[in-house]
């Protein structure tokens, strides 16, 4: 058992040393240095929570340096890949333990997935709700690869009683905080796209993203994709823990802003909503030319994007945006729209996505007590100068 203080010091040292020498290198006085994470919005340094500035939502693959980080606990201080093991147990015939080398030798599968924190957009909930006050950038798309979770589970031979699959990570838990353990249904775990991911964008997972292995549950809220994975357990029912209930649950019915919701009237948050993001121009931008190139991304969890529309008159009228050619199930889709402003002035540009399930972004925040899965249309205000 390690004390809270040891955890704190260990986790802090990992990000603090470079920050400490920063003044000697003449970097900005108010800019903490996080190695490998550049120009990110700092929501929290300890635990580390970093948001992607929206202007980086301009490519199919988000570079790791700009990929958001959501940690509930302290990152494990050190993980020796030679010593690390992944155990698989619970409702299985053959409990087993796998090394990193064994996982690497299994057939590798690649999924391009848009990961989004369930709380992305929480800052727009009114009344405000507690939690990391993410605005728009707790989202990113990466190419993940590793063995299919289905193949790993097949080795352990899950019994018919195994209905859910639980993930435990190596997060260092302070105090009496409940461990970050969650589960997903067996159907999702064995769909062939859910991975034990070892690589991200062609490189070994970085520490902030779960080295040496993480679950990758494509199309679902980021919390499903447990980092620093060390234990998988097949369960006969949904895992009973804080981060399954009351955490990460959505009301069964729409609720009025500020209304309390009983936990019995909620269900686990799973797949992501349909959503779009305007990467450029930025909110508050002053544009010199009347020809304005609007671009961004749109995603829909387990569905695909059917269309993105753009309004340049605060949502009164809509025009179709052009969708990018690059497509991958679970991945966001680039889109763009070129517009000639009729005259100089201030305009509100709005983007609205619709998916293949017929879901369309709402024009106002769908409030819920934890600020989850907020997918209101995106808006930026710009000033056209000439």
């Amino acid at each position, binding site marked *: 058992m390690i004390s*809270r*203080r040891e955890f*704190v*010091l260990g986790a*802090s*040292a990992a*990000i*603090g*040393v470079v*920050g*400490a*020498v*920063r*003044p*000697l*290198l003449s*970097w*900005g006085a*108010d*800019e*903490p*240095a*996080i190695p490998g*994470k*550049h*120009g*990110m*919005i*700092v*929501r*929290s*340094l*300890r*635990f580390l*929570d*970093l*948001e992607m*500035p929206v202007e980086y939502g301009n490519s199919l693959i988000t570079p790791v*340096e700009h990929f958001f980080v959501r940690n509930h606990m302290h990152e494990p201080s050190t993980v020796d890949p030679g010593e690390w093991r992944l155990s698989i147990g619970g409702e299985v015939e053959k409990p087993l333990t796998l090394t990193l080398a064994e996982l690497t030798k299994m057939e590798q599968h690649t999924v391009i997935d848009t990961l989004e924190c369930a709380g992305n957009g929480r*800052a727009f909930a009114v*009344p*405000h*709700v*507690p939690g*990391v*006050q993410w605005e728009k950038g707790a989202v990113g798309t990466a190419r993940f690869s590793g063995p299919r979770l289905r193949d790993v589970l097949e080795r352990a031979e899950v019994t018919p009683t195994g209905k859910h699959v639980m993930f435990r990570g190596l997060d260092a838990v*302070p*105090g*009496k*905080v*409940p461990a970050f353990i969650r589960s997903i249904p067996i159907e999702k775990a064995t769909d062939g796209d859910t991975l034990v991911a070892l690589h991200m964008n062609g490189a070994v997972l970085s520490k902030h993203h779960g080295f040496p292995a993480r679950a990758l549950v494509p199309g679902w809220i980021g919390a499903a994709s447990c980092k620093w994975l060390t234990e998988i357990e097949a369960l006969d029912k949904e895992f009973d823990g804080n981060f399954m209930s009351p955490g990460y649950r959505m009301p069964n019915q729409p609720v009025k802003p500020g209304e309390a919701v009983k936990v019995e009237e909620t269900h686990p948050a799973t797949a992501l909503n349909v959503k779009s993001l305007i990467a450029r121009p930025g909110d508050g931008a002053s544009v010199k030319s009347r020809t304005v190139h609007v671009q961004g991304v749109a995603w829909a969890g387990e569905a695909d994007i059917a269309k993105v529309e753009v309004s340049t008159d605060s949502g009164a009228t809509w025009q179709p945006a052009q969708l990018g050619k690059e497509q991958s199930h679970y991945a966001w889709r680039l889109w763009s729209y070129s517009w000639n402003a009729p005259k100089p002035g201030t305009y509100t540009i709005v983007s609205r996505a619709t998916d293949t399930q017929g879901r369309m972004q709402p024009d106002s925040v769908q409030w819920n007590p934890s600020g989850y899965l907020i997918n209101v249309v995106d808006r930026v205000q710009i000033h056209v100068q000439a």
Partner: protein
Amino acid sequence: MLLALLLSLTCVAVLRPQSADLPSGPLQAKMKTACLECHDSGIIVQQRLGKAAWTKEVDKMIKWGAVVDPGDRDAFIEYLSENFPADKEPDVAPRTARAKKK
């Protein structure tokens, strides 16, 4: 050698990257001891909550191991409600340093 010593001393002096400090006042020191043991101040100063919501948060943190003298609980809630109320303008988050240009 001298530079190495200077670097190591600097590292010890400012081990943690700094977030916005908690507002001054008689509760500041106690808040730092109780809350910043596990997390930094940034997660506190970005919240905008009413008193009822702050009460829930304080009680949750005590349940999760924050060491708060029972006699200070109400004062903690008051401190947070007064400094980070629902109608206060949003916090402006800092950015991490950008990569140095090569």
